[in-house]
């Protein structure tokens, strides 16, 4: 899983001098700072939104909470470059709706990335929240604490692992994102990496910068570990938790609904409506439906395979992390997560480099595509799987063993069904991210293998963005059902 790291090492060692120079440009430090700032800001705001939505949709009597949960998770399926473009055209200078100058630069990047990454936190936090024992909240309320206070003092501390995990993903996503920051003209670290490759064909400099990104990731990882430490030791009460009695929102129902409406309106309705409007124009130009359909099929195929494979690979690591936490486990986890912080292009090139040398028979086949996607998106599956496993009470597994079942059997019949919610959440995140992915598919897919994301790319690349509207809309459509299943699955 740390193949990208190997690749970076080889490239840098080719010309360590150049690599060193690339790092010591004063711009490097500045951009690293800016990128980190953006990542932190996005992680914070996305956490806030995600936790609020998760609470509203799992613990209250908000009308239509299931539906809201699905709708609120949907913005994630909008590729950030599409989303950014949509916002620029909708809200930017000369925008269709309103004109907001801040859409360019930090403000815009923050806004757009928050909007398109908070589902990364929402999904695991929702899963974790619905598994928390509501008796604790009741106990707190019986002590005279208001729901808000209970939320702060009881729920939040227990959700910390899930939030920290999700926020880490959002931060890493932000660090590695290229599409949104380039469209929104925020000067970020990834932009420099891309430019090194694209403009100056400077792979060494790019590799050095990418390695720096990995370093930053390791720091964030340590930070997350600290947030997580000693928390969530699980339920200690005898018996099985009761189902939660929803908090009655009362006069807060309307504000809550308004909040959800705004969120979904901005994150989903604006993009979808804009895309729909553009699509109607594109439809007039007789689009090649069969091709789009094939693309959709291929997207489902790669996304599905990647999700399945990532879950399989994540499983042993998550088990290790949940059952034998410790320094060594953290290292394994961190190493298997390096792919996620790297820009897609770096991962893809690493796989090119390694693939053609180590497994030429698999080069530019679906196999290497799936492999690369797993390397790239593993942490998405890993994080929520680990959280889910952590919440399965030890004694329940022990009870299974005392019934004469071996560890594997107990795993299959007890642990897996109890952790399935979180596992599916992770798999869904991989699926949703994989179907948006571009460089891997462009460089590593079998020749002529088109997916919706490559179609969007190839259309928007030559013509105006509108041309990509139909595949983009179809992408949203194929991503929605798994998301729906996922959100409605957890009890």
């Amino acid at each position, binding site marked *: 899983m740390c193949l990208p790291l190997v690749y970076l090492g080889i490239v840098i060692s080719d010309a360590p001098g150049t690599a060193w120079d690339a790092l010591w440009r004063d711009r490097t430090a500045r951009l690293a700072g800016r990128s980190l700032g953006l990542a932190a800001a996005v992680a914070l705001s996305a956490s806030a939104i995600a936790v609020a939505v998760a609470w509203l949709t799992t613990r209250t009597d908000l009308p239509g909470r299931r539906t809201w949960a699905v709708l609120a998770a949907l913005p994630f399926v909008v590729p950030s470059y599409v989303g950014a473009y949509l916002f620029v055209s909708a809200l930017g200078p000369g925008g269709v709706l309103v004109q907001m100058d801040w859409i360019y630069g930090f403000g815009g990047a923050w806004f757009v990335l928050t909007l398109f990454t908070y589902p990364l936190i929402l999904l695991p936090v929702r899963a974790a929240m619905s598994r928390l*024992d509501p*008796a*604790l909240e*009741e*106990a*707190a*309320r*019986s*002590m*005279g*604490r*208001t*729901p808000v206070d209970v939320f702060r*003092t*009881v729920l939040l*501390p*227990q959700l910390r692992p899930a939030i920290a995990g999700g926020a880490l993903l959002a931060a890493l996503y932000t660090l590695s994102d290229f599409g949104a920051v380039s469209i929104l003209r925020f000067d970020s670290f990834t932009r420099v990496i891309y430019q090194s490759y694209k403009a100056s064909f400077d792979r060494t400099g790019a590799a050095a910068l990418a390695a720096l990104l990995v370093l930053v990731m390791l720091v964030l990882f340590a930070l997350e570990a600290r947030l997580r430490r000693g*928390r*969530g*030791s*699980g*339920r*200690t*009460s*005898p*018996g099985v*938790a009761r189902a939660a*009695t929803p908090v*009655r929102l009362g006069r807060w129902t309307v504000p809550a609904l308004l909040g959800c409406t705004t969120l979904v309106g901005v994150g989903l309705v604006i993009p979808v409506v804009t895309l729909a409007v553009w699509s109607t124009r594109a439809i007039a130009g007789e689009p090649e439906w069969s091709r789009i359909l094939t693309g959709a099929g291929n997207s489902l195929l790669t996304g599905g395979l990647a999700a399945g494979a990532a879950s399989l690979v994540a499983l042993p690591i998550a088990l290790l992390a949940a059952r034998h936490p410790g320094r060594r486990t953290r290292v394994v986890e961190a190493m298997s997560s390096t792919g996620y912080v790297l820009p897609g292009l770096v991962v893809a090139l690493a796989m090119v480099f390694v693939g053609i040398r180590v497994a030429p028979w698999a080069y530019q086949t679906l196999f290497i595509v799936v492999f690369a996607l797993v390397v790239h998106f593993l942490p998405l599956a890993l994080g929520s799987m680990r959280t889910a496993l952590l919440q399965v009470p030890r004694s329940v597994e022990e009870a299974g063993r005392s019934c004469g079942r071996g560890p594997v059997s107990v795993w299959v019949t007890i642990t897996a069904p109890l952790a399935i919610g979180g596992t599916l959440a992770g798999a869904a995140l991989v699926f949703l991210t994989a179907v948006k992915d571009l460089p891997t598919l462009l460089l590593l897919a079998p020749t002529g293998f088109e997916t919706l994301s490559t179609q969007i790319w190839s259309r928007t690349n030559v013509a105006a963005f509108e041309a990509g509207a139909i595949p983009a809309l179809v992408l949203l459509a194929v991503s929605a059902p798994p998301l729906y299943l996922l959100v409605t699955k957890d009890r």
Partner: protein
Amino acid sequence: MRFRSPADDPTAGPGGTDDLDGPPCHAISCVGLSKRFGDIHAVRGLSLDVRRGEIVALLGPSGCGKTTMLRTLAGFEHPDDGRITIGGHLVTDATGEGRAVHVAPEGRRVGMVFQDYALFPHLDVRANVGYALGRRPDQARVDEVLQLVGLEEHGDRRPHELSGGQQQRVALARALAPSPAVVLLDEPFSNLDAALRVRVRGEVRRLLREAGVTALLVTHDQDEALSMADRVAVMHAGQLQQVGTPEEVYASPATRWVAEFLGEVDVFPGSADGAGTATSVLAALPCRPGLEGPVEILVRPESVHIDAVGTPRGARDALVVEREYYGHDQLVVLELDDGLKVRSRRPGYPAWHPGDRVKAWIDGPVTVLPRA
């Protein structure tokens, strides 16, 4: 101790709980409470009044709806019907007459011990207890209640590092810490050993009394209900069977079910003559005059005396066939000469053994109820 103001006579008049206003009579009053879970009718039209400063035990078999009842009082369950007043304030009205009322749990100012403890896993013992005391908990008070439950040395442990009984004691300490005017206790002593239970029970009782706290204690343990409570409400299948002082419910059970639930009892058919005597295979016994026709005679084992040589009139020959040893006492199963079986509870010493031939006679209260 930081108690509000001690009530002199806890069962009479307004207690010292100065933050409760409204009619001075009842701290908790509920009328016609009903709660269903799907097609399970957990609580059926239950009415109960608890006076200021009184300790009432809600006693009933497993699954009879005790927890549901308590959770409804605390505001965690919305009843399907009925009305609840706490400290003179209407907190729940689901009767359908007038506007539905449901005061949130945190607005009821009621302490609660949960049957499953509901400790905060992310907080240590001190913080769990302190949590009930608000943002800046009075550490002296935390120490005080921890001492009460014998956990003064476990303050820094997290719940998962405690044994089951220790966890339960933390839950108890947490509920008592803020000295609420009303506490609801759901099986608060079930995981304590007898010695500790007796000590903690005694301490809790004293503490409730001193502070004039009104308590509703849910328990399935007859001993606990009878020894701790001022009154016992016996519950069965969602309904109250009898409410009364411990002596009343034990010695004068209203129904055979209550008699059987509160302790061992042997039942014999008989018939009453309407003039105050019931005759049965066992003996002729006094009963309420006016009772006539077929009756059931309920005899508790401790009313059956045995001795190696029977002196009293009416003593009968019996054979010891079984015996259960409880330390301080023993339960002896006797077979009378006509094959009838009856149990006798005797002090743990001297020991009786199967095969002993004895004399048995009745000396103590028996209950005579009309046969259905």
